[in-house]
């Protein structure tokens, strides 16, 4: 593969990963607060359809994104209400929503299938886009992509450098202890679940208004599930989750290059390949394998290595908060 080809692969990867980045950041926030929003698949698909339809009708991409974010927030509110207030199974309600919303998107989206519509206009950044290598790779994109960079940085900064961010980690970890220190666990959980849902809505619209430009039947199929997997792969850390999203983008972009080169391989194989490879990667980062790897190291470094690599889910993830 030539250098130029590689650049194209990576550049496509960033474009392909941008919607996923919003999705994984949203899910990370939600799960950090202790609520699994399993509806990601449905939310993303429905918001892709709705965002595109609204942008088409209103002629404004921004309105499309805003409506998508609102719908995403609304879906998350349903999950939040069942999980936080009713203390029901987060898995069940999220799963039902995922199925319901993706079918609803197919059904309601029929009139706009393959209709050309507005997209986010390209916006090469002055100066930065002239930097060799990095310029064409990172800064000859559009506003949405730049926004995703900022979102990654802000989410990380918020989680690890601010007091509300520390409280967010605390309520997903030990809600009782957080409550003891004056955190309003219920209100904060709602806040982050809804915020996470809004980001997922934006992720949906990012597919139909940017990366895939348009809507067709089950246009974003599988992305919601892979986003959930990437959050786990990323150890609930926004930087690592974003890295996971980019990795998935690279796999996808490689698969499309391979499609040209190996014409005799059925396309279905290459479309599915990134998903399979991603699962293999998840297995490799699982705890059991890490333990075996670590056991080859001397005891003194073993502990530090494991501490660095191992990630554990927020301790209260999926558990309702009950004050005793």
């Amino acid at each position, binding site marked *: 593969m030539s250098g130029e080809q590689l650049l194209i692969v990576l550049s496509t990867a960033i474009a392909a990963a941008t919607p996923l980045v919003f999705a994984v950041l949203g899910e990370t926030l939600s799960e950090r607060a202790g609520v699994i929003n399993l509806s990601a698949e449905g939310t993303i698909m429905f918001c892709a359809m709705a965002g595109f339809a609204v942008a088409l009708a209103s002629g404004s991409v921004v309105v499309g994104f805003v409506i998508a974010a609102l719908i995403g927030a609304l879906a998350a509110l349903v999950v939040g209400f069942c999980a936080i207030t009713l203390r029901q199974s987060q898995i069940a309600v999220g799963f039902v929503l995922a199925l319901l919303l993706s079918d609803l998107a197919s059904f309601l989206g029929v009139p706009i299938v393959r209709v050309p519509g507005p997209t986010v206009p390209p916006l090469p950044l002055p100066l930065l886009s002239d930097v060799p290598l990095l310029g064409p790779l990172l800064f000859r994109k559009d506003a949405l992509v730049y926004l995703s960079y900022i979102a990654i940085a802000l989410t990380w900064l918020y989680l690890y450098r601010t*007091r509300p961010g520390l*409280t967010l*980690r605390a309520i997903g970890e*030990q809600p009782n202890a957080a409550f003891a*220190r*004056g955190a309003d666990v219920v209100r904060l959980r709602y806040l982050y679940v809804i915020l996470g849902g809004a980001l997922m809505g934006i992720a949906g619209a990012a597919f139909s208004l940017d990366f895939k430009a348009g809507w067709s039947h089950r246009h974003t199929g599988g992305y919601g599930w892979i986003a959930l997997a990437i959050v786990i792969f990323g150890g609930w850390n926004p930087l690592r989750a974003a890295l996971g999203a980019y990795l998935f983008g690279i796999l996808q972009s490689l698969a499309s290059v391979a499609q040209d080169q190996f014409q005799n391989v059925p396309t279905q194989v290459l479309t599915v390949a990134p998903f399979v490879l991603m699962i293999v990667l998840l297995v490799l980062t699982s705890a059991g394998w890490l333990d075996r790897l670590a056991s080859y190291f001397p005891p003194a470094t073993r*502990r530090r290595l494991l501490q660095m690599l191992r990630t554990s889910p927020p301790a209260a993830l999926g558990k309702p908060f009950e004050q005793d």
Partner: protein
Amino acid sequence: MDVELIHIHKHFGEVHANDDVCVRFRSGTIHGLLGENGAGKSTLVKILSGYITHDSGDIALDGKLVSIQTPTDAIRHGIGMLHQDPLDFPSLTVLENFMAGGGGLWLHRREARRRLCEIASSLNFSLDPDAHVSELTVGERQQLEIVRLLALGVQVLILDEPTTGISAVQKEQLFAALRQLAADGRTIIFVSHKLEDVEALCDEVTVMRQGRVVGSAAIPCSPAQLVEMMFGKPLAPPIKPPTAREEIALELREALIRTNTFDLHVPHLAVRCGEVLGLAGLEGSGQQEFLAACSGLIPLRHGSLRLNGREMAHRPYHSFMRAGVCYLPADRLRDGLIGGLTIREHVALRAPTRSFFLDEPLNARLTMEAIRVFNIRGQPNTRVERLSGGNQQRTQLALMPNPLSVICMEHPTRGLDIESALWIWQLLIARCQQGTAILFASSDLDEITAYSDRVLVFSGGRVSEPLDAHRLTADVLGHMIGGKF
């Protein structure tokens, strides 16, 4: 600050957990709140610290009535509580735990670090701000909570069973710190079921039984008097007769046992039938892994392990079980019992039949028998997580097969009241007389010296030669745990 609790009542459903409780805690003193499990001490201090609200009654601070509805209210009034299981965030660092809660947008790490170290060193605690709380011992987590509460300006410090699960050295550190805090004019409320701790530390003591205050006394006073107040009758510990026989139940040779941080080497150890072997040492010195290895839960790295003469190294856990080994973990609900299942379902799991369908009449009969014989305070359909710690331990013991050749136990009586602890040891001694060898780890040195025939000391990644328990005192043991052997 003087704290007065006036005519406090609290019901949990049918149970009258606090029945017209009146106590006064004077500033500058360490006040013990003594009673067996379920006496209502924890309920009372949780009311004072805002974790639960009382049905009726008043709380007065320095003579002024106040309303405490939430933990935040309590902190605002200068009342802080250290819970039995510290309420902290294991996945966060010490510094982050210290900072969690409170207002403002940005985290001032440097300022917080300075404050943390300042308070910690004033109490002679050594806390590494960057360590993860999950790596700390219970004792260190307590120290962190105390430091955090003091940073919030707490004048009344409540400690709920703080000496459970910490080492002797940490206990001394804790007591020294508490004396210092009392000398500074703070009010210390020390909740405990351990008589000796209350006698060693407190200035005065209030005894509770079945939700009521049954009396109070100034320390020093006679222990017998306190015991009688606690239980309504005098108690005597069981005497351990010599039970060791000639045959060897468990033998280790050149065994290497892997722990998280080091490999533990045991050159040679033979445990005889009927013998009680106590494992002493700071928590995390390898006792748990040693017991797990002896019961086949983790494989030996190399070396030999013989059970009743048969080589068992690298055999699976169920062949250890078949060979008569039983392992009772410290965390009863996590590793021992199955939360969500009832006592009867536990009995059914262990029932000696292989039939496909559950034999309910048989299970019902076995369960009733277990409840009666083991004096479990619960119904056959009570789910195990609803039982108190003592009754969970009794249930675990009731589920032990009979006969057994080796029992491996972690902290057999941790968190239990004196009566349950004595009862459990009576039962274990009876097992020894049948020829069962018992290996147990405990952080209670008196328990180790009282019941062991021989003792292994774990310290600094090493394990001592077996020591004759009759020549050991808790004092000597304490020094050895510090690494002098």
